[in-house]
């Protein structure tokens, strides 16, 4: 038991978990009703679950999916893709464009999604080429699509913000009749399972980390470093297109200016809160996903406290500063020293002085 505890203390998941627990604790003191889950009947006559917890899980869906892709890009290319919001707008626009020109049926939705996917993967390939082949810093490289992405999305639908209406889209964006859990949550679960299967049954994790830690060495061991970076950007493209399509399905329309606005910053934050080094290398997808839910939980808590939506970002910033500083190596070491002083007995057993400093 103690061994498990020790292992956990070293784990990078400790900070996000503690943050999440603190948030829950805070809400428990503030208003225990925050956690209530109700069974209600929505406008379409479905029996559904509602409440703050469901709303957190639901609204964080896009962020969680993008954070997964962002983690891979961060790990392999030692930088972040800041064009995800703009590319999601492109993918969403393609999705809507295809839907608008056809009768909406499941096959058409699939085709539309694949169309959006291809567009986002192409964008990913563009970013990947700049980063992997031309060795441009990821943030600079993706700045191009951050700037150009939403105008491209505007152009795809001829400047309009078209609406697409179909109960089928409602199934994706809110509820499938008979299932009380919001569909985006189910999509995240399915996607997370797929990603963990991919990580389990391929060498994606090992290769990505090797490239991120020591590219030269990875190459000399036969790993295609350029290819791995490329791949990570394209996989982020897939994530972004899924997020974009969920976003469109929720609203039943695409507004290229506002869809998933500023999500790149939240996604990078989610990766950081998850304990992943933004300088690449080792990564934990679970950490990033947890980071995404923490960000959303924070937002929802603030809304529940009736903080105005413009002020929310400022409050969020304060909490995030706290989390990131708490997770920094300097504070971590200080905390260890503090603990050793408070509980001198445990010092010998643990000897947790800076390893390979």
């Amino acid at each position, binding site marked *: 038991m103690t061994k498990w505890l020790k292992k956990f203390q070293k784990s990078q998941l400790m900070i996000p978990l503690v943050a999440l627990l603190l948030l829950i604790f805070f809400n428990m003191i503030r208003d225990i009703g925050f956690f209530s889950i109700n069974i209600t009947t929505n406008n379409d006559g479905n029996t559904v679950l509602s409440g703050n917890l469901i709303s957190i899980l639901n609204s964080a869906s896009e962020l969680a999916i993008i954070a997964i892709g962002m983690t891979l890009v961060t790990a392999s290319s030692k930088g972040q893709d800041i064009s995800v919001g703009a590319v999601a707008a492109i993918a969403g626009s393609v999705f809507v464009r295809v839907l608008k020109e056809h009768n909406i049926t499941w096959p058409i939705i699939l085709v539309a999604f694949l169309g959006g996917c291809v567009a986002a993967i192409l964008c990913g390939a563009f970013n990947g080429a700049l980063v992997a082949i031309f060795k441009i810093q990821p943030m600079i490289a993706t700045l191009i699509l951050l700037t150009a992405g939403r105008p491209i999305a505007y152009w795809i639908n001829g400047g309009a913000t078209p609406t697409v209406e179909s109960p089928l889209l409602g199934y994706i964006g809110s509820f499938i009749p008979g299932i009380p859990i919001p569909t985006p949550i189910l999509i995240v679960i399915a996607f997370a399972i797929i990603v963990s299967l991919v990580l*389990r*049954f*391929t*060498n*994606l994790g*090992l*290769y990505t*980390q*090797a490239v991120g*830690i*020591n590219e*030269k*060495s*990875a*190459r*000399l*061991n*036969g*790993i*295609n470093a350029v290819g791995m970076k490329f791949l990570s950007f394209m996989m982020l493209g897939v994530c972004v297109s899924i997020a974009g399509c969920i976003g469109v399905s929720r609203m039943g329309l695409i507004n290229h200016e506002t869809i998933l606005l500023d999500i790149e910053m939240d996604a990078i934050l989610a990766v950081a809160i998850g304990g992943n080094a933004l300088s690449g*290398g*080792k990564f934990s997808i679970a950490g990033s996903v947890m980071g995404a839910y923490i960000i959303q939980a924070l937002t929802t808590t603030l809304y529940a406290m009736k903080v105005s939506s413009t002020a929310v970002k400022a409050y969020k910033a304060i909490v995030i500063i706290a989390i990131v500083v708490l997770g920094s190596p300097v504070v971590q070491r200080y905390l260890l020293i503090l603990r050793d002083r408070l509980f001198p007995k445990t010092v010998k057993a*643990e*000897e*947790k*002085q*800076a*390893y*390979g*400093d």
Partner: protein
Amino acid sequence: MPNDIVLSMRNISKSFPGVRALHDVDFTLNKGEIHALMGENGAGKSTLIKVLTGVYPKDAGQIHIEDCEKEASIKSPQDAQNLGISTVYQEITLCPNLTVAENMFIGRGNYRFVNWQTMRDKTREILEKLNIPARATQQLATCSLAVQQMVAIARAVDMECKVLILDEPTSSLDEREVGKLFTLMRELKSRGVGIIFITHFLEQVYEVCDRITVLRNGELIGAYDVKDLPRVQLISKMMGKELDDISQMHSKSPTGERSGNVHVLEAEGLSSVAATKAFDFKIDRGEVNGFTGLLGSGRSECVRAIFGADKVTGGKVLVNGKPVKIAKPKDAMKLGIGYLPEDRKQDGIVDELSVRENIILALQVMRGFFRPFSRSEAEKFADEYIKLLGIKTASSDTPIKSLSGGNQQKAILARWLLTKPQYLILDEPTRGIDVGTKVEIQKLVLQLAQDGVSVTFISSEIEEMLRTCSRLIVMRDREIVGELMQDDMTQAKIMHTIAGEAAQND
């Protein structure tokens, strides 16, 4: 003569998680003395130095500087520097993106303003005095590794130090440069500087040092005058056992089986972007050959071209008599070629990954992206080779960066042995590692050859090459200038070939 003592360390102890790195170690350094600190990998030499220079806090013990009664408090490298302790580490710790002059003066003194002109002039003066072939305004990264090392030493020397620590300064220098460094060390010694010299080259210890302190497994074995401690004794003290006579190994050196005319690997007119002259090369089954030459003569570039590590620009390669195309490392790996690179830190280890992941990496890549080893398979491989090569690590899960240099090297060696290569290229496998491990690696090479593996072995130590190789390819100025076999393989002959005199006799 207590007044002569410039540094005394008493009862120093230091532990890391799971490892007792130092236990009750004493160390005394006199003024004007070159003092060798000897020990195998993981004996605690580097830890002792890092405690002295404030990189690690010590768990127990005292440090006194000169005849000062008060205990010196060294909490950071800056403190150490202020007390007159300067260090040149094994790995170059300068900033490659700054100029030589900036590197010499960065982080010194508490000035707010910098007079760039004086700084450059002063640097130029020091460089000239020490005969270092670099310009003050040159960016450090454009200097060779050896020159970078010398700049680091010049920087340390210039800081009015009482104690100069040289941690493996010679591992990347060639003989001429080592000579220059020794001249410099002797001059400093005559000025009364106490020098702590850490090296794995026994010859150098006996050439330049006055006293030797031996550590083993974090404990002090003893301090001796050089003249009282013959080599064999030193080695046996370091290893804690009698060393089998390494010189015996030479006779066992295999010459390879001549199985018809088919060579394991044959290259014709091979050239790469790394700018060596196109060269021919061949190796037989079970043969050990070597590339020798001064630093920068192109030995590494040749083997890199064979492995496809640099872009190949021309030439033909035959493996087992069949023409093949090696455009990238993976092609070579698939043909059963392994390559242990020269620069372990930059090209070898993936430092944050575990020992296990580092060991299985190459085999895993050969097996394919979609066929990862299960955790238990990987563990089995790693544990097998950790045991086989005696890699000292807490577990196979430990990050490789926390291992000592020699053990890291063994792990990389394990990585390639695991792929069961038919041809293994070892570029400086023994650089910066202790005598015991060196001998182990040499033995392993000979064992591999007996098992039918062909090996190309590169080392800066000619004795080592003579002991292991049956054929030496001599390089000068990025060109193969000779090939020596059997009876021709003597130090003198090699030197002559490198110098270009033998060419006239041919």
